[in-house]
C-alpha cells in the first residue's frame, strides 16, 4: 500500500476533529478512488468516536495528545510523512468537502508539471461550487494580494486541498513557524521562497454534517484579519529578497 505504479509513496493526510459522522464515508471514498495511497487520519483530540471509526476501517490514526487545531494537526501528518519517506502528501479535509477522485487529479498534476505544490482550485474554472459570498470576496482579495506581490495568479488561495512534493514535505515538517491558518499566507511565503505552485480545477462539496472551524460570524472575520495581517508581514519580510528555492 501507499505505492503506485511508479513506486511513489503517497500519503493522504486527513486532520479530523469530531468528524465521526463524516470520516467513514471519506475513508471509503479514498479506498475506492485512490487505492494506491496510504491514509493517515490525525485525530485532533476529538470528543466523539472518530478514532474508533478510523481504526475500525483499518486506517492509521495519530492521536494528538492535546487539541492542536487544524494547521498543527496537518503538520503532524506531514512530519509523519517525512519520517516515513513519503514522496507526496495530499491534504484532505475530514468533512467530506474534498472528493477522493479529485485528489488523484492533484497527484497527476504534480507529476505532470513537476510542481512543488498543486492546489485543488474551485474557481479556476466554473465547477459549480456554491461558495458563500463572504468567502468568495475573501478569496478574491487574497488572489489580488498574491498576484500583486508575487506576480502569480492563484485563483483559490484559501483551498486546503493540496498535494505536496518531498521538498515541501521536508520544509513544512522542519519549519518552526508553521502558521495557524496555512492558506494564502503560506502560499505567498512559498512563492516568495521560490517554490513552484500550480493549480488544477477540482470539484468540491459543502460539508454535510458537523461544524466548520470557520463557522459563525466572528471566526471568519478573525480569520480574514489574521490572513491579511500575515500577508502584509510577509511582504515586509521578503521585500527585496531573491526568490531562490532554499
Amino acid at each position, binding site marked *: 500500500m501507499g505505492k503506485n505504479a511508479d513506486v511513489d509513496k503517497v500519503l493522504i493526510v486527513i486532520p479530523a476533529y469530531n468528524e465521526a459522522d463524516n470520516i467513514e464515508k471519506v475513508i471509503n471514498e479514498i479506498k475506492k478512488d485512490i487505492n494506491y495511497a496510504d491514509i493517515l487520519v*490525525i485525530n485532533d483530540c476529538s470528543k466523539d468516536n472518530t478514532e474508533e471509526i478510523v481504526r475500525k476501517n483499518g486506517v*492509521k*490514526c*495519530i*492521536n*494528538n*495528545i*492535546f487539541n*492542536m487545531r487544524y494547521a*498543527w494537526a496537518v*503538520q*503532524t501528518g506531514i*512530519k*509523519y510523512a517525512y*519520517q516515513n519517506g513519503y514522496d507526496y502528501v495530499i491534504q484532505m479535509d475530514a468533512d467530506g468537502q474534498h472528493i477522493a477522485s479529485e485528489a488523484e487529479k492533484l497527484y497527476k498534476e504534480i507529476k505532470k508539471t513537476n510542481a512543488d505544490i498543486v492546489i485543488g482550485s474551485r474557481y479556476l474554472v466554473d465547477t459549480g461550487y456554491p461558495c458563500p459570498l463572504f468567502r468568495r470576496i475573501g478569496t478574491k482579495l487574497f488572489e489580488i494580494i498574491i498576484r500583486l506581490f508575487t506576480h502569480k495568479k492563484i485563483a483559490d488561495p484559501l483551498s486546503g486541498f493540496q498535494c505536496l512534493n518531498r521538498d515541501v514535505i521536508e520544509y513544512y515538517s522542519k519549519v*518552526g*513557524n508553521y502558521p495557524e491558518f496555512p492558506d494564502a499566507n503560506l502560499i505567498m511565503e512559498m512563492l516568495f521562497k521560490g517554490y513552484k505552485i500550480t493549480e488544477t480545477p477540482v470539484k468540491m462539496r459543502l460539508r454535510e454534517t458537523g461544524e466548520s472551524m470557520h463557522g459563525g460570524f466572528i471566526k471568519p472575520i478573525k480569520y480574514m484579519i489574521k490572513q491579511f495581517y500575515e500577508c502584509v508581514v510577509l511582504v515586509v519580510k521578503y521585500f527585496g529578497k531573491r526568490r531562490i528555492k532554499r
Partner: protein
Amino acid sequence: MKRIYFIVLAALVIIYMIVSIRKNKLSVTNSFFWILFCICMLVLSIFPKSLDWLAKLVGITYPPALFLTIAAVILFILNFIHSKKIEVLNKKVTDLAQELSVVKEKVNEKK
C-alpha cells in the same frame, strides 16, 4: 517616615528576588530586570532628590511623571520579552507533542 517605608519595601523586594534566585525559582537572566527595577527603587528612596534632578535633566516638570514613564517603559520591554519567550515555548511544546503523537503511532504499528 515615608522615605523609610519605601527603603524597607525596596530592600524587602530585593531580598525576595535573591531568595527566589537561590531557590532556583527565578533564573539569573530573568531576574536581571526585576533586580534593576528594585535597585532603582532603593536609590530613589534613599535619595528622593535624585528624581527631581533627573526630571530637570530630561526636561520633565513633574518628577513623578518621569518615574511612571521609566516604569512603563521597563514593563513594556519585559512584556515584549515574555511574549517572545511564550511564542518560542509554544512552538517547542507543539513540536514535542507532534513528535510524541507520531512516535506513539509508530509504537502502535509495531505492536
